[in-house]
């Protein structure tokens, strides 16, 4: 009996040590930072809108130029608790003004903070991990040109066990993937560009794809629609079998530009902010997103039929 207890204690220690190592925050290799050069600020601004930074990090309800002050504070209510978007303006105290590019890149691609702890996946590093280093370099350059804000955003309000940051490392083992989601045999240039924008910076899948009980994306139901992670209702199925089945590629591009559907209904909810970001991209990028959405496999709805 005593030997059994001794064995179990040793086993528990071994498992704990293994989990500790497995849950370590990810880092980037030195090689990733080679040959980046000076940031192209115009491209950085495009990446800023493609990435939708302002939709969460600007002050809640900000419109127009106020969207450029990334003071944080937006509450994101989820099944796991309430997350508050942090201040990512260039303020050295309240914001990220004293971060290095390496720290920014590790946050974006690995979900690792400068203190070496895990960020929560309410920040969509699970998608941003697919952003090219050169684009991150441009984005970082652009972010530093934006106004500083000294606003201090509230801490996340999460219950047990979601308040254990280290556990996010184990979640990352399951859900942090940097490869392409959809495997195309021979995509044309537009489809490839659309794939990059949708699966990477645009992080469309974060809302349009259903999640598992512990909040990981069900990639087998990519873009099939989901219950709204942050409120009532659903986020539509945007595969070729979903709500936009009858839309042409031109209709999709026009929607992203204007917010109007082919029936002249409009975007609603959080998609309004997303659409306004997309309207700032070059027309060719909106056409590329449309080409990609037409090329992906159709899926049945990823959310339950409504009961109302």
């Amino acid at each position, binding site marked *: 009996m005593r030997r059994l207890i001794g064995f179990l204690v040793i086993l528990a220690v071994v498992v704990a040590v293994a989990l500790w190592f497995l849950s370590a925050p990810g880092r980037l290799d030195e090689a990733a930072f080679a040959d980046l050069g000076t940031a192209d600020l115009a491209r950085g601004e495009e990446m800023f809108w493609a990435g939708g930074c302002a939709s969460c990090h600007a002050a809640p309800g900000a419109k127009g130029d106020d969207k450029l002050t990334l003071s944080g504070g937006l509450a994101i209510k989820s099944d796991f608790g309430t997350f508050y978007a942090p201040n990512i303006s260039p303020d050295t105290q309240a914001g990220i003004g004293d971060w290095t590019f390496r720290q920014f890149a590790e946050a974006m691609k690995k979900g690792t903070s400068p203190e070496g702890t895990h960020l929560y996946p309410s920040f969509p590093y699970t998608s941003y991990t697919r952003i090219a280093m050169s684009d991150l370099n441009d984005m970082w350059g652009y972010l530093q040109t934006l106004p500083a804000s000294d606003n201090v955003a509230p801490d996340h309000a999460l219950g047990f066990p979601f308040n254990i940051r280290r556990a996010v490392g184990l979640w990352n083992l399951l859900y942090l993937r940097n490869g392409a989601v959809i495997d195309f045999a021979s995509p044309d240039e537009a489809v490839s560009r659309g794939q990059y924008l949708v699966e990477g910076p645009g992080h469309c899948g974060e809302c349009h794809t259903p999640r598992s009980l512990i909040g990981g994306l069900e990639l087998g139901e990519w873009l099939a629609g989901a219950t*709204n992670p942050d*409120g*009532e*209702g*659903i*986020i*539509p199925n945007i595969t070729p079998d979903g*709500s936009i089945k009858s839309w042409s590629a031109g209709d999709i591009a026009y929607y992203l530009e*204007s*917010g*109007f559907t082919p*029936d*002249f*209904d*409009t*975007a*609603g*909810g*959080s*998609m*309004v*902010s997303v*659409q306004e970001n997309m309207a700032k991209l070059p027309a060719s990028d909106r056409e590329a997103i449309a080409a990609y959405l037409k090329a992906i496999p159709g899926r049945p709805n990823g959310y339950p039929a*409504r009961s*109302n």
Partner: protein
Amino acid sequence: MKNALAIAIAALFLSGNAAVAAEPQVERQQSMKSVGQAMGTLAKTAKGEIDYDATAVIEAFAAMNTAAVNFIDQFPEGTETGHETEASPNIWSDRAGFEEAVKKFDTDTANAVIAAPHDIAAFRAEFGKVAQNCKTCHETYRVSKK
């Protein structure tokens, strides 16, 4: 002749009453459909897909204004659910904000009718102001369900 006119007027009232008697959820969905139809005319004009027709444009703004005038009354207490409504609970929890948004739509569409734009440039200015209302209101007061 007088009788025929009286009957016609009575019929008009009766049909008006019949519309009022419909469920508010259905009624407001029809209001929004009429706005969508009018928006179709205006957006196609803005895109240059149809030739500029001042009469059609003013009628479309007027149709939107008609929908806006009674819109607030189509969201009474007790109609938060049912008939596949996509009305957000925010309409009832933030009534003042909702009423302000609808009144802005009412004002902007009324101004567009009064402006009676007779060329595409004048039209675009009014169209931009009116169209912005759709998204602003739907961002907060509408929930997607299908």
